[in-house]
């Protein structure tokens, strides 16, 4: 059994590694076939406010500086070997190593996505379980209407409404950024409060974006469990509701964890919209901005980083599940 599990973990790990390599490859080739190219973002637009007088020699030097005049396969080898040294290149727009930018943005995205994930999972499981338990009841009906409704609101529209209501009309929360720049804090609590208040709106928005999915998932899985003999037996033996729920939850946790991990990529999309709407300085806004600026290295780096995090979470979920439930390793 144990050997089987470790074999499963290793083979899954290999599969993830291959996946990651393919993502690296996609990521490398896609931006390079776009018109425009990074050179233009350095030199600015022709005929713009300060036309760059750039001659062939200078162009060559700039291309050389960014490795752009090597043949494609050499670029690719450079790229892969650099990627494994955590060298994702040098940002054209920000003029610093890409990894530095990503590391600067990462905590904010982790804070935003992490809290939203926790909140949506917690409430998703609570409501899903409750809804499944009382299926057909008033609460279930209400939730089955409310949740799909939230799921139907586009994230950017919800964000705009939130900015309007909570940012402007009531003035309860700041509407942009992650902290008040250069504020003098009375103490760490004050500082934490500042971060929290900036976090609240985007976090609620992302939670509302993510929770309906979790809720429906948990409800479906739990409804299936409810029909199983062990539940009927437990009920007939008069076990407490809480105890039965606990068992249902434990038995449903594997698909729930797996599905939540699989939905992470979807959540990244939500984060891109929400961070853009709220100007939250995380990876999502970075992706959007560097896309606008055609900052290849950053765009590539952010995409790799996001994919890596999503894959790692999925792998972690796999491992966790194979420990929770031995059967998962056998399929």
């Amino acid at each position, binding site marked *: 059994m144990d050997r089987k599990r470790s074999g499963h973990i290793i083979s899954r790990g290999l*599969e993830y590694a*291959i*996946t990651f390599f*393919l*993502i690296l490859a*996609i990521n490398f080739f*896609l*931006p390079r*076939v*776009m018109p425009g190219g990074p050179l233009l973002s350095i030199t600015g637009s022709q005929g713009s406010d300060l036309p760059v007088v750039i001659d062939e020699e200078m162009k060559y030097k700039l291309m050389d500086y960014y490795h752009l005049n090597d043949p494609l396969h050499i670029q690719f080898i450079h790229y892969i070997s650099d990627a494994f040294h955590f060298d994702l290149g040098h940002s054209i727009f920000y003029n610093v190593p890409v990894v530095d930018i990503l590391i600067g943005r990462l905590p904010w995205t982790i804070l935003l996505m992490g809290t939203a994930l926790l909140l949506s999972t917690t409430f998703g499981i609570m409501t899903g379980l409750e809804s499944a338990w009382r299926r*057909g009841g008033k609460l279930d009906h209400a939730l*089955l209407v409310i949740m*799909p*409704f939230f*799921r*139907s*609101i*586009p*994230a*950017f*529209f919800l964000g*705009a*409404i939130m900015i*309007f209501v909570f940012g*402007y009309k009531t003035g309860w929360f700041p509407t942009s950024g992650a902290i008040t720049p250069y504020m003098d804090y009375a103490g760490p609590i004050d500082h934490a409060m500042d971060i929290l208040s900036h976090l609240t709106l985007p976090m609620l928005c992302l939670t509302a974006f993510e929770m309906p999915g979790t809720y429906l998932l948990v409800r479906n899985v739990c409804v299936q469990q409810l029909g199983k003999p062990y539940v009927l037996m437990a009920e007939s033996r008069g076990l407490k509701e809480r105890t039965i729920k606990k068992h249902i939850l434990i038995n449903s946790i594997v698909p729930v964890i797996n599905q939540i991990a*699989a939905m*992470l*990529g*979807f959540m*990244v*999309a939500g984060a*891109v*919209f929400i961070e*853009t709407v709220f100007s939250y300085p995380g990876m999502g806004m970075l*992706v*959007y901005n560097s*896309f606008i600026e055609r900052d290849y290295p950053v*765009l590539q780096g*952010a*995409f790799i980083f*996001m*994919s890596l995090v*999503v*894959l790692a979470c*999925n792998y972690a979920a796999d491992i966790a599940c194979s420990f929770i439930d031995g059967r998962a390793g056998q399929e």
Partner: protein
Amino acid sequence: MHEITVVQRLKSPKGISGLAILCSFIFIAIAAPFLTSYSPDDISSRPLLEPNSEHLLGTDDVGRDIFSNLLYGARTSLAVALIVSSGVLIIGTLAGVFSGYTGGNLDRVMMRGVDIFLMIPDLPLILILAAYLRPSLWNIIFILIVMGWPVGARITRAQTRTLRVSGHVDFARISGAGNWYVIKRHIVPDLYPIMITTIVMQSIRAILSESGLAFLGLGDPSYPSWGTMIKYAISYPLVFFTDAWMWWLMPAGVCITLLVLSFVLVGQALEGDK
């Protein structure tokens, strides 16, 4: 047999309300030219008018009738939903049935490929693709199909696997039926419910993605889109400081929400919720 259950399921309150909303949007899309006298790109009116009898929802920043843009926006959304979901359905079903029916290593490799697709955070990749192909409605549809078919393939494949080992399929095979015959007569009909679910799910995805890309400025300007309307409404600085948000921002957002909601309700009804 299955068709009947589908109809029965749709007769639930959710199914009926979902279908009602959906049908009214389809009606709006088809009847748009009769419901408004303005073409969506008619700019003869004064910009930033408040709602009046001429313009039910006023005009936008360049003098377009917001109401007619809203109506024609339904066309764009529904067309994208229809084409993307059929595209995903066809490719996904073919790939899924093929993979699931063949089984073995090929199945394994294909499903790995599908898993890879499913795990890639799709929006960053869509951004890159959309930029590469430049914003046009057909490119967006193409991207959404490319990014969406694995989902369809995966569900279809799972169902095919189940059917493949189920009694009647085995029986047919033992009786000497060819693969094509089995697939056509015994597997595909059993996939109908899943196909409808795929259409519903992909329509939701297509509508939300199209409006999202339009909101990010990657939409096709030749077609009126609700996402573009929201984008312009929000970037008009006075939208929140006057009442303009009520007739410019909200209708477009509410339309997206309602249309998506109608598909969600239909989807839930199909899954057997009441």
